[in-house]
């Protein structure tokens, strides 16, 4: 089969008991307060992560040593209902400005003082564009299978 593999987007949602504006505020300007420190691409441990509040704004992490690592940028900034982020992190954990995958987050009212947050991470097929190089990475222990293994262990320990 030679068809291009197009993985379905990753879709997740959560309902929180706060108004839409608060949910948007915590998600964006509070991003560094809740983003799991284990999800970091920098050489130094993650101190914080930031979404700059404007279209074209940077999306990056700051390490304990103060170094910044880009993740991507803000493609659409529509407070308090929608943001679209470019996630430009390759399968080998490197930032690659030529890679485009998109993360769209929608905030909608779900009753009084409740907000439904829906997230979609799409265009994942672009991650496969590097072909063989990526394939090798998948196989190594440092690659996704290793990370997935570590991650599952972490979850099981909770």
């Amino acid at each position, binding site marked *: *089969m030679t068809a291009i*593999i*197009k*993985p*379905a987007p*990753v879709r*997740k*949602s*959560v309902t*929180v*008991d*706060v108004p839409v504006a*608060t*949910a948007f505020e*915590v*998600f964006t300007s*509070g991003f560094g*307060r*809740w*983003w*799991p420190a284990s*999800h970091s691409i920098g050489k130094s441990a993650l101190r914080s992560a930031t979404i700059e509040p404007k279209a074209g704004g940077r999306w990056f992490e700051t390490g304990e040593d103060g170094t910044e690592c880009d993740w991507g940028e803000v493609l659409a900034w529509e407070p308090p209902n929608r943001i679209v982020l470019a996630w430009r992190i390759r*399968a080998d954990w490197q930032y690659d400005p030529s890679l485009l995958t998109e993360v769209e987050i929608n905030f909608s009212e779900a009753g009084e003082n409740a907000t439904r*947050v829906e*997230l979609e*991470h799409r265009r*994942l*097929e672009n*991650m*496969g564009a590097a072909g063989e190089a990526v*394939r090798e990475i*998948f*196989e190594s222990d440092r*690659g*996704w*299978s290793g*990370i*997935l293994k570590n*991650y*599952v262990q972490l*979850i099981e320990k909770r």
Partner: protein
Amino acid sequence: MVALADPTRRKVFELVAEEPRSVANLARTVPVSQPAISHHLKVLREARLVRAEPRGASNIYHVDPHGLGEMRAWLDQMWGNALDAFRNEINKAKERNNDGDH
């Protein structure tokens, strides 16, 4: 993507992503017939999302490390985990505010 458009097939993929499983194991977990499971696995295999490893008389299905399945499964877990953390932060902030009211 066609391979993951079907909800049952997606469920089968998610179960295999959790841990390697046999067709019999999947048929016990997902409420469809064993031939239906086998068909879903065939489609997932063709999309290189899972691969089969023979063990005895049957096959054990794994997420295919050559395909994008592993990465997608990882991102799926990562975002689930991230949104949980987001909800926890909201709940913590609410508790802090409630404490302030007393």
